[in-house]
């Protein structure tokens, strides 16, 4: 299973500058664990004890995972996951 993950600029220090990486996982939590195995330290920047960090948004195929099942959201082959810091408009 291969899931494409878009990495935001500020986390690319962990991925050797790579903007898009691939990882595996049956759920978003599994995917984050796999990312951390490949790029140690990445996990702590995305999640904390309470779940997703407050200023981090994660989208599965453009939908905010907080409105799916959060870290328990199931993933399928070919899905695309985007990680972004929260920004405002107005």
């Amino acid at each position, binding site marked *: 299973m291969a899931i494409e993950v878009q990495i*935001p*600029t*500020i*986390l690319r220090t962990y991925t050797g500058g790579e903007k898009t990486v691939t990882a595996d996982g049956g759920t978003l939590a599994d995917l984050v664990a796999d990312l951390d195995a490949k790029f140690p330290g990445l996990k702590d*920047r995305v999640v904390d004890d309470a779940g997703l*960090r*407050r*200023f*981090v*948004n994660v*989208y599965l195929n*453009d*939908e*905010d995972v*907080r*409105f799916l099942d959060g870290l328990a959201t199931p993933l399928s082959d070919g899905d695309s996951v*985007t990680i*972004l*810091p*929260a*920004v*405002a*408009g*107005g």
Partner: protein
Amino acid sequence: MRYPDLLASVGHTPLVGLPRLSPTADVRLWAKLEDRNPTGSVKDRAALAMIERAEADGTLAPGATILEPTSGNTGISLAMVARQRGYHVICVMPENTSFERTQLLRMWGAEIVYSPAQGGSNEAVRVAKDLASRNPDWVMLYQYGNPANPQTHYDTTGPEILADLPEITHFVAGLGTTGTLMGVGRFLREHKPEVQIVAAEPRYGELVYGLRNLDEGFVPELYDESVLTSRYSVGPHDALMRTRQLLHEEGIFAGISTGAILHAALGLADRAAGSGQVADICFIVCDGGWKYLSTGAYEGSLEEAEQAISGQLWA
């Protein structure tokens, strides 16, 4: 319609059907034309409401200076109201906004302090908070945390929509300060609990997310996740494609955030049509396309337009 003055005419916007973009006779799209406000955007409602609340509670005295972080529209609306009520407006605006935003702000008499492109609106908020702390006599209405912002949508936008479309099943709007969605969303949930409240959030070029660390991320104080049913991130390609589709098929000349909102609305419409549901989907036209003409959004191929607006803020 007759009003005693311009400010009294804020709101009361038309709701128009979109027969060509609606997928079936049972799944209908409706556009709430917020570009028909005095400065051409939905933000006239929030700006007027915040100023009137600050006048009522004594925060704003005659001749006061108003300071506000804004990607443009709120600043333009504040400047329009302030000009009539006798206040001075200083806007902190990211430098990566369209030239028209600067022109319009100056036209209504606002002063502009530019914040760095990198970090987008988050950076404008930080700069404005810093300026406010050094100028305690300036009044920061602070659209991201001011309850008058969602309240006016609860009091006006929501009831207007429900009166025009009692059969509404979905409401879709943009997510900037979250004022529109929080206010209309709460109102609709109280009156029609089954209505889906859906956010379309713009996904910008990388520059805008170029924060120094993740703790510089920003979630408006007004935001309450429990009001929403779902939230989609819409990139520039989809937003521009839909902005043009709305223009070509329905004749509505809207700004780019409206394209992002339409993209989410059409996704919901397709799903409803696919499962044989009846749906009446209302979405917000946040502003007209006028102030994005110089960006190149409406010219050339989609790829060229996407290139032209990359790194720019459009909500």
